[in-house]
């Protein structure tokens, strides 16, 4: 069964390399071949989901004993890449960077999402990529390879490697097929994301090396490990162990034993040092993911990159690659460093999320272009992801995960529609596109459906995620009142969302027909079979996830429960900040 996971990773790689070298075969063959690879991978990912869903449900029996992420046994492929220390007994992960991939609840649903959206992206640009199309599709396949690799990795360095590798196809895709200002946009994206990624790498290295130094005992060093499950265990043990030591020593304080007192001082110093270094490491780790997401102070690359990129790439950027940021928080930041996640969560990250939600919505209202509006709308909706994560309880985390999936589907479909319009009319400006409903009936109908999904109409998928994120923040015990205030303010974001999205529908699809004078095609036709092939099944999926998201919630519960539990344990046993009072 693990071959299936490996195949999921290798098919796009092989496909990409093959397609890149199809120089003389013309665009028709290249796009067909690429679509074949994408569909094959979609099939593999669906098969994978089908196989693993029941296994994961069985797996979740031992939810409470689980102390770290455990990929499904049957899905794991692992071997050494770079070994610089001899392996220790019982710890094959010690002293080596390993190729370690697997599937658990957290990444299972992201795999089919990736495959669906990449296949959709090919359909979206079916007719618009004519020049050097073999390179375009080859790079898209390589982009899929690196994205899937990042989702599957259970080794931090491997994760980082794939995470950073996404930049290279993106750079070329945007700079070669984008809009007029494409080179600037591509380079800006590259440098921003590389800088953020290097901060993340520094955080990873800092964490690995500080967990290598045994904080509980001076005499022995713990093994160097890069495996995410082992790192979580080590970090958790260190935190709990130090807390306990200080607590025990405090209990004995009355004895006035000088030895015990110095011991207490030492352990307190260790705890303080660990707490402060954790904070720095957390900030470094988070930077890369905040850039990738993007969240408020690091979002300035986003409007240029999304707008200048060819729409097929924008679809993937908003639908999948942004999720890599949120996934990084769920997989690395929060479970690895629960204490700073708690301390900085409300005051810094939820406020950043709040700013992103409102600021993004305000910007979206002000746009006069469909693609730009969708860009800012995506920025605003991703704020909910961040908000849900830093509620740090099961409701919020689940909501954030659902928002990742649902936003991926919605924004993918909306950018797909945007590409349809831009291909037919050569523009996405609101002033040129009005009242299309009277002409393009099916397109208008399906567009209204997806807009409603994105607005968060109850019963459709957008609603579930956003509302759970807000509920999570309301429930959050993290300084009681702050969570409630932030959640209330953020709920305004849903109102603004409804405002700009519905007024967009009013302008573009209702009212009197107004088309640009110069169209790309003489007779503008309604949806082609191929476009229906993408939009309709996806609509069914959106509806299903809106009405009955329970299977998904159940499957990810063990992992979500684990993240929430790690936080609770690390923070509730003995809150670090309250020790001295």
């Amino acid at each position, binding site marked *: 069964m693990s071959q299936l996971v490996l195949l999921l990773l290798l098919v796009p790689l092989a496909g990409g390399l093959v397609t890149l070298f199809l120089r003389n075969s013309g665009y028709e063959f290249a796009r067909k071949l690429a679509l074949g690879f994408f569909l094959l991978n979609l099939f593999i990912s669906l098969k994978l989901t089908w196989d693993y869903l029941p296994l994961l449900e069985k797996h979740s029996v031992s939810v409470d004993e689980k102390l770290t992420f455990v990929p499904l046994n049957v899905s794991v492929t692992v071997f050494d*890449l770079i070994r610089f220390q001899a392996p220790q007994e019982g710890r094959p992960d010690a002293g080596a960077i390993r190729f370690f991939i697997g599937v658990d609840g957290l990444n299972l649903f992201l795999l089919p999402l990736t495959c669906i959206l990449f296949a959709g992206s090919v359909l979206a640009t079916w007719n618009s990529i004519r020049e050097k199309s073999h390179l375009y599709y080859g790079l898209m396949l390589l982009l899929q390879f690196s994205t899937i690799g990042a989702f599957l990795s259970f080794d931090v360095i491997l994760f980082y490697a794939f995470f950073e590798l996404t930049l*290279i196809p993106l750079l070329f895709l945007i700079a070669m097929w984008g809009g007029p200002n494409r080179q600037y946009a591509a380079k800006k994206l590259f440098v921003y994301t590389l800088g953020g990624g290097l901060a993340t790498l520094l955080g990873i*290295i800092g964490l690995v090396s500080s967990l290598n130094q045994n904080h509980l005992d001076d005499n022995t060093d713990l093994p160097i490990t890069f495996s995410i499950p082992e790192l979580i265990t080590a970090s958790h043990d260190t935190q709990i162990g130090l807390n306990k030591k200080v607590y025990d020593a405090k209990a004995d304080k009355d004895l006035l034993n000088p030895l015990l007192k110095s011991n207490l001082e030492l352990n307190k110093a260790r705890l303080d040092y660990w707490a402060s270094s954790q904070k720095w490491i957390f900030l470094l780790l988070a930077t890369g993911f905040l850039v990738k997401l993007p969240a408020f102070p690091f979002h300035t690359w986003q409007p240029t990159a999304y707008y200048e990129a060819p729409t097929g790439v924008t679809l993937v950027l908003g639908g999948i690659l942004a999720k890599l940021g949120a996934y990084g928080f769920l997989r690395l930041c929060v479970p690895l460093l629960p204490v700073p996640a708690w301390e900085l969560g409300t005051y810094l990250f939820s406020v950043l999320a709040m700013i992103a939600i409102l600021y993004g919505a305000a910007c979206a209202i002000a746009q006069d272009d469909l693609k730009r509006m969708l860009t800012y709308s995506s920025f605003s909706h991703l704020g909910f992801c961040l908000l849900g994560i830093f509620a740090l309880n099961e409701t919020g985390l689940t909501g954030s995960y659902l928002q990742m999936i649902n936003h991926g589907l919605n924004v993918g479909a909306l950018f797909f529609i945007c590409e349809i319009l831009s291909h037919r009319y050569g523009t996405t400006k609101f002033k040129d596109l009005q009242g299309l409903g009277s002409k393009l009936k099916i397109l208008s109908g399906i567009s209204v459906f997806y807009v409603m999904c994105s607005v968060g109409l109850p019963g459709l998928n957008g609603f579930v995620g956003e509302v759970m994120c807000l509920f999570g923040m309301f429930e959050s015990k993290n300084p009681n009142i702050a969570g409630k205030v932030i959640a209330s303010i953020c709920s305004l974001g849903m109102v603004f969302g409804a405002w700009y999205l519905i007024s967009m529908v009013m302008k573009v699809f209702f009212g009197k027909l107004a088309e640009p004078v110069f169209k790309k095609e003489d007779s503008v036709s309604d949806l082609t079979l191929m476009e229906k092939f993408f939009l309709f099944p996806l609509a069914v999926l959106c509806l299903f996830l809106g009405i009955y998201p329970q299977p998904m919630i159940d499957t990810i519960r063990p992992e979500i429960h684990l993240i929430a539990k790690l936080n609770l344990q690390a923070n509730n046993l003995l809150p670090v900040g309250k020790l001295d009072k």
Partner: protein
Amino acid sequence: MIGSLLIVDYIQYMMPEIVLFSLASLMLLFGPFVKKNTPWALISSLGFLLAYLLLLSNKHGAIDPSLLFSINILEDMSSNFIRHFSLGMGLFFCLLFWRDCQTENTFETFALIMFLVTGCSIVGISNDLIVLFLGLELISIPTYVLLYLHGKKDLAAESAMKYFFLSIFSSGLVLLGFSYLYGIVGTTNISAISDALCNGYRFKPSADLDNSSGLLFLIPMLAILAGLGFKISMVPFHFYAPDVYQGTTYRMCALLATVSKVAGFAAIVRIFGFALAQGALPGSSKTLDNIYVLFWILSAVTMTIGTILGLLQRNLRRILAYSSISHSGYILAGIAVAPKLELATGLDGIGASFFYLIAYFFGTFGIFAVLDVLDTKEKPIEDWDDLAGIGSQTPLLAICLAVFLFSLIGIPFTGGFLAKFFIVFGCVSVPYTWDDALSKGTHNLFFLLGIIAFLNAAVGSWIYLRILSGIYFKPAIWPRVFNTSFRPSYFPIIACLLIVLVLGIKPNLIINLNILKGMAHPVNSVSLSGVEIPKPAEIDVVLKRQ
């Protein structure tokens, strides 16, 4: 009574260098009299292959480690590494310069390359200040000639002169430092000097030297570092690099940017080994205990200035010159952190530096080799936007160039990424103890160096992105007629491509990471193995006299 190596052992051990040197001398001697179209490149390549075979046939442990204090060459991990590396480099350069022998009868070029490589190899195995200096000069002097032979007409004289004067000056500094060291210690044997530097107690008989000995050592050490800093183009001795690179061909740039750097770093590690070895030396190195601060500053300044000035350039040679300066900064970071690391954890600092040197060599060599192919008389490549259209006109070469550029940026799955990773991993994992404020301070200091390194890497990516955008994103201005005939320099390009990728994915296939550990100093590895090293009587006599 201390033994000495038999002359036979010397010759057997030095056979590769001797073969190269004599072959080069013969070529210089008979070159003018031999008819044209002699395949000099082939001859020197065969010479390199022969030397390499001889090197491989050398028995390990050919030199008795107990003779460390009395002989002027040695065999340890770093010497083996440098020898293999420089002979490999020599073969690469032969293939790169191959076409020179078709156009002109330039036996000099190949003879001089062989001298250069011999020098680099001798630096690696030297255990004596004189031998080390000999090796360094064997690199410098052929470089002057090569610079003039391969210069561009109008700029050749300037760049050769500039390099000549500055190089002479730096050699003078090195020599000053060496003579000073000899004056203090009374021997030219590097192991003995290191030993004396480690064990400050030797100076106790003379009371007035005791207090000031550390200070006294500082003067030669700084002079030597300054002189070697020129070789590795370290700030503030970097000014020559952009001008000299600009005045010469891409082939020569490849040579300038790599050989003297490898030799310079090998010499730094050899001479400063006592201060860089990780806590396992017999006796603690009290002298120059804080030399790491100096290296820290030099490293931070070098990488920052290289990156920032690189951003301001348009000329490709100047861009790459500044890029090579900033990479020296990263390598110095590994050297700076070396004395503060424990042997047990991962790679040590020196090992990380050497790994970086390998990754840097293959990336930089690859770039210059590709540019050398693209640079023709009809369409010279000067600025980065002269590369416009390469991406579609010669796609395979363009992909190679892109991979090398990505490696220098430090993108994962290339050698450059792992190199930066090892360096920064070293910087970040400086251990500390709980009750020692100083050790925590050092820990934070090196964490800061890690941050500086990554900031520079992020900003520096813009430099390489501009070259990339020249290759791929600019429309071709006019059609380039590209000669697709086979060239020998494709071999090293393909080899570089493969090596850069393998270094990033599974480096153990090329280099055993374990041999990169404990390279700092021979005394280190020897004393760990428990062998007692007797000291020659005359050294003790000199030391006592002081």
